[in-house]
């Protein structure tokens, strides 16, 4: 029985896919068209009641929220593939810390930029210029802190690649490519080197090769 991942086109499901590849776990995918509102259909809401992607099915077991899914598989398959948690409870604590930083400090402004700059023109929804400006400002401050951190350690939680770095790949890709804001990273030497390192991993290249972004 193979893990089924819903919504591979979109950002957050790619967080799960890159983790499964790092952990050498086989999976299959099921498309969900958010533009057609397939995520709001009753059948889908039975799996993910908030109407978001991803959700996974592993035999009888269903789990949603990409950062919960990656934690589960990184733990369950601890002895297989890349070690994404670190070796000690303290290292794991640092991975948790930077996973939360990604979720609460990096993700929100990048997500706002994706919605307002990239998706709004496609859906005909209004684009909020104020939100765009605030998000750009916030992101600069966040990336300054990342620059300071990454001048001391090779990766966010320490000198080892972890779930915390991995979690930045899907929306980092939007930031570096489609959003036209790559300079925010490129003008920060250590963040730039870190981005090149993590985005050139075989696992991420494989995700990009197999699943296109919607924009």
């Amino acid at each position, binding site marked *: 029985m193979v893990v089924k991942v819903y919504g591979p086109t979109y950002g957050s499901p790619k967080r799960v896919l890159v983790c499964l590849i790092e952990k050498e776990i086989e999976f299959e995918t099921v498309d969900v068209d958010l533009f057609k509102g397939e995520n709001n259909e009753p059948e889908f809401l039975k799996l993910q*009641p908030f109407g978001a992607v991803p959700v996974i099915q592993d035999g009888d077991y269903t789990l949603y929220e990409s950062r919960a*899914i990656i934690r589960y598989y990184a733990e369950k398959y601890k002895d297989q593939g890349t070690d994404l948690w670190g070796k000690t409870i303290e290292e*794991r604590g640092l991975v*948790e*810390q930077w996973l939360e930083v990604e*979720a609460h400090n990096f993700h929100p402004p990048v997500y706002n930029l994706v919605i307002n700059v990239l998706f709004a023109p496609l859906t005909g929804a209004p684009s909020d210029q104020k939100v765009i400006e605030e998000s750009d400002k916030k992101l600069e401050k966040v990336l300054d802190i990342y620059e300071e951190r990454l001048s001391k350690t090779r990766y966010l939680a320490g000198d080892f690649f972890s779930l915390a770095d991995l979690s930045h790949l899907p929306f980092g890709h939007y930031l570096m490519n489609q959003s036209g804001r790559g300079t925010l990273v490129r003008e920060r030497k250590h963040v730039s080197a870190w981005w090149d390192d993590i985005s050139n991993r075989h696992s991420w290249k494989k995700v990009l090769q197999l699943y296109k972004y919607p924009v």
Partner: protein
Amino acid sequence: MAAPTVKVYGPPMSTAVSRVLACLIEKDVQFQLIPVNMSKGEHKSPDYLKIHPFGQVPAFQDGDHISLFESRAICRYVCEKFGEKGNKELYGRNPLAKASIDQWLEAEGQNFNPPSSTLVFQLAFAPRMKIKQDEGAIKQNKEKLAKVLDVYDKRLGESRFLAGEDFSLADLSHLPNIHYLVAAPDAAPLFTSPNVARWWDEISSRDSWKQVVDLQRGA
């Protein structure tokens, strides 16, 4: 008795600080609470920025061997490190239980927290700080939160707590924001649907949360 090695930095009235305090008390872990005077900008001082580069509260230290920030990361660390102390079900006793807790912790962080935090600021803190309330933001975030709570009410009709039949970190994580919102006439009605109301009553009656509320009042 030696001073506790665990230190939490920040005012107990901060929602994120109180999240960590509730967890430490559930796990029966002794701690020192170090004040940070935010109205004087202590959270942006060079010394504080060394332990929390984002200049937020809480920050956390466990003796010499770790310094952490982000309340939900601190809670998870505390549960891992002190697994055998206090409430052993708090982060699950097996991987599937833990995954369900992480799912609802993430749902809290991604779906519940953004609208509820905005409402906490607008309804509980802005008036105290003599900042003008943003009526548009209040309306918009009440609507968002109501949709999230619809999902919660359905879930809590099927399950005693969010992640299953045991109180967990996922429920605990909601205590700080809801505590402020049920005290605000404009937001309290959001929490009156039968299952959410039953759940709120049960989780807020826990001894650990009562102790946190005492700390908030004492500060």
